[in-house]
């Protein structure tokens, strides 16, 4: 052992790190290394003295953080909820024949809508881009958007069409459309759709509607009204009438805190017979039912979101697909363990579970409060 080899160990020793016996032996016999250790000690003490005499004793100014808006945490949830409102169809860059997002609206709208609007959208070359079926939307429901894109050798036309409102025998259609020439940033153009104002058109059944698009030509809409929802459209985005469906991922948020996120398998069941519960080991269980039960608080189920309040704090549950169509009441209660609400359910082995769990059960088995 020589001084050069021992030096770094002496620095570590000064910081409380263990050193080898060999270095210890060298240090006890070496004046130069002893002097190094003493110098380190003196330098450190002097630096702390300087710190005490300067910075840490200075008056602390008023924190400017108070005037800074905590934008991220708050807006994160708002933004997220906004974009999670309803899953949109993926943009298709080929000739497509999509059903409109309104597929399955029969669940609640079938009894209230007078008719259905079946339409086809054609491009500038007369080729069909897509077709859809939507309620005529007498209430102006905002969820009926359809998004799409069509590629051409010289660019892409992006469009977003909303079946906006039934007005007498006609249907108001709101549309945004944009032409992205070849070589332009396609995605940037697509994003620009968000900022564009809608143009409104009044469509009369049996006639053609022309939607002019700068630089492209025009899109054509042809359609007619049906008194009944076609059977092939009924099954789609929403579950059948009287059924709720839970699709992963499941995300539970309390205020702005993410409580649990799970990507387990989903399930579905009759709203009259079944409940579902979502929980983990640390937060316990949140039991949800479309039927009221004793001790539960009332919340709101809207598409793929459930919003409720427990102990004064707002909660949000998000699922991967709409649970049901529209906005309905839901009842929620918190429990510590599965057996607290359903003795017939097997206990969860949290060690094997590795994350939150989703369970379904029959409402008749609920251990409701007397």
């Amino acid at each position, binding site marked *: 052992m020589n001084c050069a080899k021992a030096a770094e160990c002496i620095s570590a020793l000064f910081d409380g790190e263990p050193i080898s016996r060999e270095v210890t032996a060298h240090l006890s016999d070496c004046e130069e290394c002893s002097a190094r250790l003493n110098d380190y000690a003196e330098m450190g003490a*002097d630096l702390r003295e300087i710190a005490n005499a300067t910075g840490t004793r200075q008056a602390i100014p008023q924190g400017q953080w108070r005037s800074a808006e905590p934008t991220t945490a708050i807006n994160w949830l708002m933004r997220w909820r906004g974009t999670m409102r309803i899953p949109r169809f993926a943009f298709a860059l080929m000739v497509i024949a999509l059903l409109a997002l309104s597929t399955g609206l029969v669940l609640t709208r079938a009894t209230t809508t007078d008719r259905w609007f079946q339409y086809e959208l054609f491009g500038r070359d007369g080729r069909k881009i897509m077709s859809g079926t939507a309620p005529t939307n007498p209430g102006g429901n905002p969820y009926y958007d359809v998004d799409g894109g069509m590629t051409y050798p010289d660019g892409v036309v992006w469009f977003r069409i909303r079946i906006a409102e039934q007005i007498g025998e006609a249907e108001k259609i709101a549309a945004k459309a944009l032409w992205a020439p070849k070589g332009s940033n396609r995605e940037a153009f697509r994003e620009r759709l968000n900022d564009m104002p809608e143009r409104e058109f009044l469509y009369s059944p049996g006639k053609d509607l022309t939607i002019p698009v700068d630089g492209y030509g025009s899109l054509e809409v042809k359609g007619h009204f049906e008194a009944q929802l076609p059977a092939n459209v009924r099954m789609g985005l929403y579950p059948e009438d009287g059924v709720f469906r839970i699709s992963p991922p499941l995300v539970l948020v309390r205020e702005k805190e993410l409580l649990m996120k799970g990507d387990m398998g989903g399930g579905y069941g009759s709203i009259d017979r079944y409940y579902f519960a979502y929980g983990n080991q640390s937060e316990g269980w949140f039991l949800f039912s479309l039927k009221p039960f004793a001790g539960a608080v009332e919340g709101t189920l809207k598409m793929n979101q459930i919003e409720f309040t427990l102990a004064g704090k707002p909660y949000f549950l998000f699922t991967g697909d709409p649970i049901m169509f529209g906005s309905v009441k839901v009842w929620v209660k918190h429990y510590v363990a599965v057996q607290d609400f359903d003795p017939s359910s097997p206990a969860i082995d949290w060690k094997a579970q590795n994350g939150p769990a989703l369970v379904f059960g029959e409402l008749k088995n609920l251990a409701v409060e007397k």
Partner: protein
Amino acid sequence: MADDSDLWKRIRLRDAGAFEAFYRNEAGRLCAYLRQIVGDAQGAADVMQETFIQIWKSPNGFRPELGSLRGYLFGIGRKRAAEWWRKQARLAEVQGEKSEEGSREGGASFSAIGDAFARLPEPQRSLLWLREVEGQSYAELAAILQVPLGTVKSRVFAAREELRRIWGSSGHGARSEK
């Protein structure tokens, strides 16, 4: 560590009282540390404020298992200080000026060790301040500087040796002349 976690949880929940306490506890120490990096009292105060604003606006990224909340704060402060230097350099370029070491306000120039310390390169000054004054462990320094533990050990040693060399060459560290 448990206290840090609790405090962080409250900060994430936008608890202004908790953040004010955090600010009161740490602002002075952070400012003193930043002064060693930027070499300017006003600049250090500005960077300190920016550091707290950043955490208040975006309270994410702290991982208790990687170190203390103070270490996390100092790590962000160090990055903000680096940005401050880049801005100063651009400003100097625009103004056609040369950034002079002597134009900076000395970190602590009223003692022999202070003089020597002020002559250390900034990374070594920053590192020694965190180790000697703030008492950050090697593990915490590794988290702040985002370098391996072994690198921290060798860099601390190198910084001490450099300080000792400057101190000795100025005639103050008599023992180092042996």
